[in-house]
């Protein structure tokens, strides 16, 4: 069982790691690199709690192998704030009470950021469909959708 050596970039920083051939990117992030912001809610790509972006594309990190990260650029929740400066989505989630237990929050924030990068002015329906792959059991999504739309508005006004 020889391990695979992988060189990648995570949140803008070069990283190297060894992993098993069958090890998911999520397990590498959590168990080898100490990036526990991405959560495992299902391990089957149904809940979105492990969402990250790979070369700008939104993926469930539980469905991707760690070895596939070779030469890619990964962005996780840990890289979303810039130093002390929270991303507008992060700030709105706190201000508008868009989280309750908070376990789905990292995945939803990563997914919402990915939405706003593609569509800075989503309709409520577009936001709901984009986030349909991210399960939240606490909120009923109402405050999440409002926070995403409000962050989008603020980001448009600021740009």
């Amino acid at each position, binding site marked *: 069982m020889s391990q695979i050596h992988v060189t990648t970039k995570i949140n803008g920083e070069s990283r190297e790691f060894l992993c098993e051939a069958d090890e998911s990117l999520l397990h590498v992030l959590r168990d080898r690199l100490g990036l526990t912001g991405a959560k495992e*809610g299902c*391990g089957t790509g149904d809940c979105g709690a492990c969402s990250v972006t790979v070369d700008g594309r939104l993926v469930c990190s539980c469905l991707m192998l760690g070895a596939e990260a070779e030469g890619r650029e990964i962005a996780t929740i840990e890289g979303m704030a810039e130093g002390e400066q929270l991303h507008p989505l992060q700030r709105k989630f706190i201000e508008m*009470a868009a989280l309750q237990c*908070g376990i789905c929050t990292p995945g939803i924030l990563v997914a919402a950021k990915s939405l706003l990068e593609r569509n800075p002015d989503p309709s409520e329906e577009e936001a709901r469909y984009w986030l349909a792959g991210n399960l939240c059991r606490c909120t009923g999504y109402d405050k*999440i*959708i409002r926070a995403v739309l409000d962050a989008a508005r603020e980001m448009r006004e600021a740009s």
Partner: protein
Amino acid sequence: MALDTEQDVKPLEFKVVGTRVNRPDGVDKVTGRARFGADMSAPGMLIGRVLRSPHPHARIVSIDTSAAEALDGVHAVVTRADFPDIELDDALADIRDNCMAGEKALYDGHAVAAVAASSAAVARQALKLITVAYEPLPHVTDVDAAMKPDAPALHPGRTNESVPEGMSPNVMARYEFGHGDIKAGLAAADRVLERTYRTEATHQGYIEPNACLAQMGPDGRADLWCCTQGQYMVRDTCAAILGIKQGQLRVTASEIGGGFGGKTTVFLEPVALALARKAGRPVKMVMSRSEVLRATGPIASTSIDVRLGMTKDGRITAGFAELRYQGGAWPGSPVEFGAMSAFAPYDLENVKTIGWDVVTNRPKAAAYRAPGAPMAAFAVESAIDEAARLLGLDPLEMRLKNAAREGTRASYGVTYPAIGLEATLRTARDHPHWSAPLGANQGRGVACGFWFNFGGNTSVSISIASDGTVNVTEGNPDICGSRASISLMAAEELGIPYDRVRTVIADTASLGLNDVTDGSRVTFAVGLATIEAARAAKREMCRRVARLWEIDEEAVVWKDGAVHPAGPNAGDNEPMSLAEIAAIAPNTGGPISGHHEVNAEGAGVSFATHMVDVEVDPETGATKILRYTVFQDAGKAVHPSYVEGQLQGGATQGIGWALNEEYIYGEDGVLQNPGFLDYRIPVASDLPMIEPVILEIPNPGHPYGVRGVGETSIVPPLAAIANAVSAAAGVRMTELPMSPPKLLMAMQHG
């Protein structure tokens, strides 16, 4: 009366309670820093995994672990033989038997052995090397089938004395509530309705799988980190099962990724401790989603008969319900709560409920938000709605005519103090939602719901630092913002800004006993204890300042965060603020703190009315929720945003229960849908915005009028949605979930 009461009581004036502050754990949770159950590691840590029964019912003939133990990287294997043979009361013995099977495996997914290994891969491999010889037994998973006298018996001879002879051995207990004369009430009715309703088991569906990290030495001292709704419950349960002392096991609750009642018991924790003890190394265990669905507690599936008598003008003359709940493989389904709450919203002369607690070959039921009440409300509120429609009555006016109010003797025995049911009904009637037009294939439903709410054992400590900042130490895991609410109440009472208070959750060695975060008790009971602890600290500060000013304690008062001289003989001392008093504490007698311990009573009961519009698709049987409004009495909304979140979240779980979620068992007794793809909880694109309307009828049992709010919101939706779907589809739906195939069948065949 409820509205009169509202006007009679002078409302308290608040400075910070009722404001929408940022929660203290917000930044940690939006940056990924918050540490949940699976996020903790320890030096030398092993990974633990569980071997589970593939049979719904089987005698365990033998377990051979030798090959697994010999595998490189395996440090411990445990089976039931590794748990001490201790005499436990029935409830604890059942929890132990659920965590690790004894003589029989009682459901698909029941734990039979566990390993601790150097990696998850080695642990998985080791499980395959364990040989279990099973002798399969006949099984039963349906509640009505399990009640047949010749059904396969799970625990022959365990039936409680309340059960009449001759019934199935799977009937564990019988409950009865009510008053009056049902026969006479039915005779006085213009219309009698009789229906049978069924609901399927649903899972709490918390997104964070159960997880823990245990370490334990041969000296019996142990530490456990886990996601739980109650660290003291985990401590006491594990200590009893493992035969160690409560004070030697320290349990720390991690951040918790949802519980909804499902994390009010233990599954992995005693196993992880047993593995850690045997291996001499820390052991981390995390369930897969499939394990969560197969082996942690869903709520009961039910079968309920209702008989209802009503006059032409809508007065309910008699209400009768017989409720059958299966709670999985051990006694303790929430049928008692179902039987108590079924008719709780109504003022009835003749009412009776009978509950039957039934065991089946399914996972042991755990609490789920207002456990037992949503199914009972589904049955009763569906029957009331149908009777009202048959008599051509307005469903809201009809409910108002029968509504419980202050002084009503509830069907479960208590007499209500000031309650908010009528206020929710009137507000619903006057809301624009009620009169909005509906289109083709659309229907509107309403339903009421009730929950008891709870107080319980609570211990809180407040300490004041020398710079005037304040720590509240409490012992209840914060699932959805309670640290913010507790900080708000401490700030209010001490007269200081919210941002000078930080509330933390203690481990079991740092504070006295606190009951589990359940029963909507935390904002009520922990809030009450926090207010009392703050008052104790204020009394101490008053004493210190009086001594400093060399006047009587009675000659000072606490006002706006400072000690003031009171009365003409108190001198003209300048008021001293909390921060000023704190700064000189070492010179006035040492650290300043306050604490309060109580087994809190006075939790105010809570009521809600829900209103929902749906559209059904006659070609597919799919139901779309178009509009949803929740009207609920919160007593006092300490943090209105998080109260709204409770109303919205409960309604959404109810939507899932009503339309999609269900445990599906085949003839083989194996759960067919143990994953989020097939056990489908609501997603963002299924839902509209959910409008929360908070009413505040103060609870006389709390200094600020707080009632619990977390659970009532899941009680009305099942019936409200069934009533809406039935109106839209033109056919009465009496079984949940109303999934597309079932609704299509009903629409096509009437």
